[in-house]
């Protein structure tokens, strides 16, 4: 008989964690080499194996975080001083003086590692969860960006162009995890109507798209000492994730969330349990510490039916115009015939 649940985790849970670690390590060894290399073409996906990530317990800061900061932060332009005050809110988001912050998402920290303390048979177990943009399959953040500053690449990466972004934060509002983070005092808005339109630039993980195009892995993955994150052809990554999840009796996150994403987490512990014990985590988008709720629905799907009606509208109008015109022409002919008969 199973041990009674303690904090939601059973002895079987402990077994899963251990099995997960084992499966992760053996899975890594058995992984085809092409998955570890960064292909430059086709649809890509990334796999984050939570049975392998230990949050770099032996370091001051996880290697992925350090590497991301080193690679990306120099690309952010110098922030103007003073930063214009946006009318009428006067809310400025300036992270340039706190670039070292690593326990949440910021423009200068596009990946961070959340922890979940799970207790199994009175034993504390820490699961480390690298968090960043999920690079969704049909991301609302990109599709309804009013300036198309945020776009989805054919390789699956969702990328914000800091030369085009006005920092309106619509992308953050529509993201189920509120991932993009704003830096005020930089970007195009400074040259247009800085006090009345825009408020900076939104920043988030771009999957190191420039490195991908050079045939390199994203900086975080290259730096990961445990090889807990890998990138490869989408189909192979999903197959690999499913294989690992089956081997560890674990779960997958990201395959169907928000309509599907290009980031697949594999965990020996259920994501429902992980979400309940996330630290730090907050429902408040201001905190840059996203939740991990499974089965998040793609909100924009609610309007897809109407979108299809828009696509059909020209055909409907055209047919109605044809029918209307032929009816009218027939009426005219009848009237003319009547006049001639008189």
């Amino acid at each position, binding site marked *: 008989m199973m041990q009674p649940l303690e904090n939601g985790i059973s002895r079987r849970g402990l077994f899963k964690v251990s099995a997960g670690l084992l499966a992760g390590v053996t899975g890594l060894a058995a992984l085809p080499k092409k998955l570890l290399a960064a292909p430059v073409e086709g649809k890509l996906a990334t796999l984050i194996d939570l049975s392998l990530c230990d949050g770099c317990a032996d370091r001051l800061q996880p290697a992925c975080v350090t590497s991301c900061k080193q690679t990306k932060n120099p690309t952010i332009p110098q922030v103007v001083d003073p930063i214009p005050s946006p009318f009428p*809110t006067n809310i400025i988001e300036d992270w340039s003086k706190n670039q070292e912050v690593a326990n949440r998402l910021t423009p200068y920290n596009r990946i961070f590692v959340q922890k979940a303390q799970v207790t199994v048979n009175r034993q504390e177990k820490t699961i480390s969860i690298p968090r960043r943009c999920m690079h969704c399959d*049909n991301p609302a953040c990109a599709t309804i960006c009013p300036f*198309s500053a945020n*776009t*989805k690449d054919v390789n699956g990466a969702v990328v914000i162009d800091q030369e085009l972004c006005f920092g309106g934060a619509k992308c953050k509002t529509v993201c189920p995890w509120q991932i993009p983070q704003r830096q005020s005092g930089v970007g195009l808005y400074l040259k247009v109507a800085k006090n009345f339109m825009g408020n900076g630039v939104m920043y988030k993980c771009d999957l190191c798209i420039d490195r991908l195009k050079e045939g390199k892995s994203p900086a975080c993955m290259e730096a990961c000492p445990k090889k807990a994150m890998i990138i490869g052809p989408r189909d192979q990554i999903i197959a690999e994730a499913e294989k690992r999840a089956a081997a560890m009796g674990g779960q997958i996150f990201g395959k169907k969330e928000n309509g599907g994403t290009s980031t697949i987490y594999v965990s020996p512990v259920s994501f429902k349990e992980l979400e309940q014990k996330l630290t730090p985590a907050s429902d408040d988008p201001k905190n840059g510490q996203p939740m991990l709720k499974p089965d998040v629905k793609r909100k924009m799907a609610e*309007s897809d039916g109407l979108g*299809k009606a828009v*696509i059909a509208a*020209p055909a409907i109008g055209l047919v109605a115009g044809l029918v209307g015109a032929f009816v009218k*022409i027939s009426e005219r002919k009848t009237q003319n015939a009547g006049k001639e008969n008189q």
Partner: protein
Amino acid sequence: MSSGSTSDKLVQRHNLIVMFEHWGIALSGIVLLMSGIFQMPSAARYKITAIPGFWWSGEFFVTLKLHYIASVVFVGLILFHLVYHLLLKEWSMVPQRGDVSESVKVLKTFITNEPEPPFGKYLPEQRLAYVAIAVPVLLLVVSGLIKTWKNLYAPDMDRTLLLWATWVHNVGFILFFMAFLGHIGALLIKPNRPMVRGMLTGKVSREYAEHRHPLWIQELEEKKE
């Protein structure tokens, strides 16, 4: 683009189909302008969401649905308008040679109070205004369809095409908004006001028509005979 029957006091200026097209495009166009503005991150910033009854203005998924609903009506009617009048060979709104110089003369009469030249069914500036509205409308329809296709089926659409569609849509929005304001502004000019009744009821007074559009009345009388 329609002609109608005459009576002692009233002359039919527009038939039901034209009125349906006009008001359908006008109302859906207003909803499109409004929901389009609310697709910008503006409503929450400028506290429009705090106005009673306007909570939805900051909800991007709600305003997107509104934008889609209005687009179905707008795009459908634009296509109907083009096909229907093209097949019926109704060209009276299409600009004619000399319309620009004639429009300048008419505009001068508004200031100098000199008598206007005799008009046909439409004023030369009405024909020019038709083009001024039609161009942004066509830009908006084509770019809007591309953007909708991207939302549904191609989130990773070619970036160059997407940027073109986005900026054509944004510029089209500004032009359409200006054309809309110009259209409303034209109706505030005293000599044009009887035409409001024409678009609301389909009919204008015979007195107005004979005074301002004698060439049109003459055409109607000739047809009658």
